[in-house]
């Protein structure tokens, strides 16, 4: 049963990913990206990580994809144009991507994965919160400062010049 769900989710995710990079209409690509991200959230659910799955939907579908679509609608008139999806550098980037895939496959198959027998999903959420606030508070704050810097940068770029 889990196997079947996993296969369905993988097909949805990978099929969506292929559609994202091959589609000629940028708006459709963005919509397929939503499908991919929801599929990944499904995979998280399958791994009994509901919190991560919900955050995935909230951040990636709710915020990032919507912003991408919004930006597409704002910047260009793409109603019926057919964009080329690649430029002269496609060979280079394909090589880099294949190399990355190779490294990841080697790492994942070679790595020693410790397996915990206990039920992880019970009470993992309060634990996550506590760890973020105590043990990993510095990385968390660094990430927050990074986001703040991005925010201020965006405002500086977007605001009107003083006469």
């Amino acid at each position, binding site marked *: 049963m889990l196997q079947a769900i996993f296969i369905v989710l993988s097909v949805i995710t990978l099929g969506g990913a292929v559609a994202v990079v091959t589609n000629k*209409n940028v*708006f*459709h690509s963005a*919509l397929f990206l*939503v499908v991919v991200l929801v599929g990944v959230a499904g995979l998280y659910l399958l791994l009994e990580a*509901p*919190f991560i799955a*919900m*955050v995935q*939907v*909230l951040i990636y*579908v*709710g*915020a990032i*994809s*919507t912003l991408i*679509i*919004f930006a597409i*609608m*704002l910047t260009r008139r793409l*109603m*019926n144009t057919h964009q080329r999806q690649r430029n002269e550098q496609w060979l280079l980037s394909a090589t880099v991507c294949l190399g990355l895939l190779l490294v990841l496959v080697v790492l994942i198959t070679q790595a020693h994965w410790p397996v915990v027998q206990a039920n992880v*999903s019970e009470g993992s*959420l309060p634990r996550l919160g506590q760890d973020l606030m105590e043990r990993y508070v510095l990385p968390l704050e660094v990430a927050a400062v990074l986001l703040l810097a991005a925010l201020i940068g965006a405002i500086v770029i977007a605001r009107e010049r003083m006469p």
Partner: protein
Amino acid sequence: MAFVSDLFVNSWNWIAVQLARFLPPWAAELVMMFAGVVVLIAFLLFMVMLLTLLERKVVARIADRIGPNRVGPFGILQPLADTLKLIIKENTEPAQADHWVFRLAPAVAVTAALMPYAVIPLGRGMVGTDINVGVLYVVSISSLTVIAILMAGWGGCNKYSLLGGMRAVAQMFSFEVPLALCLASVVLLTGSLSLVSITEAQRELWLVLVQPVGFLLYLLCGIAEANRSPFDIPEAESELVAGYHTEYSGVRFAFFFMAEYINMFTVSAMATIMFLGGWRGPFVDQLPVLSVVYFLLKVHFLVFLMFWFRATFPRLRIDQLLSLSWKVLLPIALANLMLTALADKVAHRAGLSRMASAGLLLGSNLVLAGVAIATLYLVYERRRAPSLSRRYEIHWH
């Protein structure tokens, strides 16, 4: 009597037992799952029909009219006639439309609107599935609604649709932040993200009594999230024809209509669960069937408030709407969250009794409300245009 006292849950279990007699366990479970989905959707569709009639009646009464009164006694069959009309209408589609996106958008909107009901407890023991991240689930699903609106706005190949879609995104983005912060302070107090546990945690005290500011903020943001008047700028008739669903007709339009009403019901249901104790009420432990009644009464009270708002307040302009969200609601919601966390911690450290800590929380909330109102008064009093009476005085002299 014991059967009737918990009618819905008991009959549900009885059907499950009967099914298990002649079906293998997995098949019985599957059938019951599908039956649950069908029952939920049927219930929600019935609610949508009821709400459309109620809205027209309430708004008519407030405007000193009678409202629908032709179809059936007191017009109660009006929703049926409306539904029939929408179903038999032609499905028009612009020639230039992005056809698949155009056709998919209504389905996505309704799906996103229905999904929260998987985790919302409608009564004692009446919940699809009790997941331990329920609040987060409901908040994240509401972001799918934004995608549906964007798809509709884009697919129609119409300037007004596109503008409506963009407005919807700006609005829903801005109001989701204070909304999530209000929910976060509730989660902080109850210590759980599961909607069932949050209802249970309000056994003694409804959270609206310790979080009045949070409740009001949630209600405001919720109305904006559901695109209801006075925050209905994505479909402002006077500016944008009909906003993102300008190009839709027939059943596809009906889908958007349904999605909007279900979203309104969801916002009210969430406010009920988070702040008004969900299905809790007197004698619920003795007579569990009452829980559904209490829940629906509370939800319909909030829905009535929304109708009342619609009949009373004029629509905001988009810049007013966004500055309301970012400059007023967001700071108050942030301050509310921090103050709630502080008061809760102090109450824990001092070892106060439940009543005393509730009093402390309520006190800090009221202080926040006072400070917020005073600040708003000081800031906006200076900018306010001279009042009408003052202007007329000039003419009278």
